[in-house]
């Protein structure tokens, strides 16, 4: 049987959902024979590969770099799964939307800074913040949604198992927004 080429992506989130994947513990061993992790914070691949079967995305879209990356990744992924509330609703990452990016930058780099003589925000190398943090599905097509903050590891396990076995599952008995 051909292994599922799996990628996982960590955007604007706390990595809690990636922790939740690891929280599958011994079930990871059960899943491992069917999956080839080709791109992820768990592995050291620099470029996003072509022909990925499934990309699991944690976190919301916060920067111009996130947008460019997610569009490229969508082109190279057969299926995309939004994992956790940040990817689905914006959640904590999108709380700054109520105040705007400038207020957040001012707070971080001026108000709370001990040393910032030039009174400037970082503008080189680091990506530019979007005006509004966006959930994944507002920018690219998303095939599956698995909400939760974080998504419980059992829900991730059941979802992956169903995808491996090629069957549909009802995720609503496994997880929801929040806890």
């Amino acid at each position, binding site marked *: 049987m051909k292994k599922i080429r799996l990628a996982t992506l960590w955007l604007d989130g706390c990595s809690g959902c990636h922790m939740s994947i690891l929280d599958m513990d011994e079930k990871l061993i059960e899943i491992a024979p069917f999956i080839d992790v080709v791109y992820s914070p768990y592995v050291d691949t620099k470029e996003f590969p072509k022909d990925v079967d499934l990309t699991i995305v944690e976190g919301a879209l916060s920067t111009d770099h996130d947008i460019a990356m997610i569009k490229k990744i969508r082109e190279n992924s057969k299926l995309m799964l939004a994992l956790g509330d940040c990817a689905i609703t914006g959640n904590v990452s999108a709380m700054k*939307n109520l105040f705007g990016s400038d207020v957040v930058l001012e707070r971080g780099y001026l108000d709370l800074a001990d040393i910032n003589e030039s009174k400037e925000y970082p503008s080189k190398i680091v990506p530019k913040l979007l005006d509004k943090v966006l959930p994944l599905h507002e920018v690219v097509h998303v095939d599956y949604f698995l909400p939760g903050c974080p998504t419980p590891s059992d829900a991730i396990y059941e979802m992956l198992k169903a995808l491996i076995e090629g069957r549909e599952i009802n995720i609503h008995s496994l997880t929801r*927004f929040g*806890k």
Partner: protein
Amino acid sequence: MIREKVRVKSFKINDICVTGQSNQTILEVARDNNIEIPTMCYLEGLSCVGSCRMCIVEIKGSHEPTPACTAKIKEGMEVTTSSPQIEAARKMILSMMFSERSHVCSTCVANGDCELQSKSVELELEHSEVPYLNQRFEIDASHKNFVNDPNRCILCTRCIRVCDEIEGAHALDLAGRGLNMRIVHDMDEPWAASQSCTSCGKCVYVCPTGALYEKDISEEEVIKKRGIITELIKNRSQR
């Protein structure tokens, strides 16, 4: 006053023959017959305003969906409580509730005890079908015991109704229109300055979300006593 005579009416819900009294609503008769219709703003014992539109049903011959909580029954009517159109409309309504304000479950005291959250499971909604509006409202934390956070409000008006109809104070009401509408105290004064609020806390107990909550308690300690109001009304009517 001439009272309208209460008559028994027969009609159909989902092709099941049911009977009810002419002063009953479709929702009441449905519940009497164990037919489930999802609700949000409805709370047994309070008046029905049909503000959330969650309980919409189809009535044969009518072109638009009707809220079951405010529609009185009619002889021979044929009601359908679930269809692909109704399900889609309910999901859209729920999406609009989620997107209109900032419902961040993970930072909310009502996380795990929220009717909006549990409704998403019931209606199987795992993402909003409309973009988020990201509106910000000022929080009123002036009261010594309670907080009013309009960012988590779905404008069901349960708090207004319980304050007016059960406590008899009518300290709360709506201000503003459309997207800017919010719950206010008296003439839009800080909660602590409200002359009519008795600080009974009934509004906090009936709030379906974390919009009204008790101060200084954690998410684990939040207990929404929504049923207590229904019990209170039953006990009073028995006197």
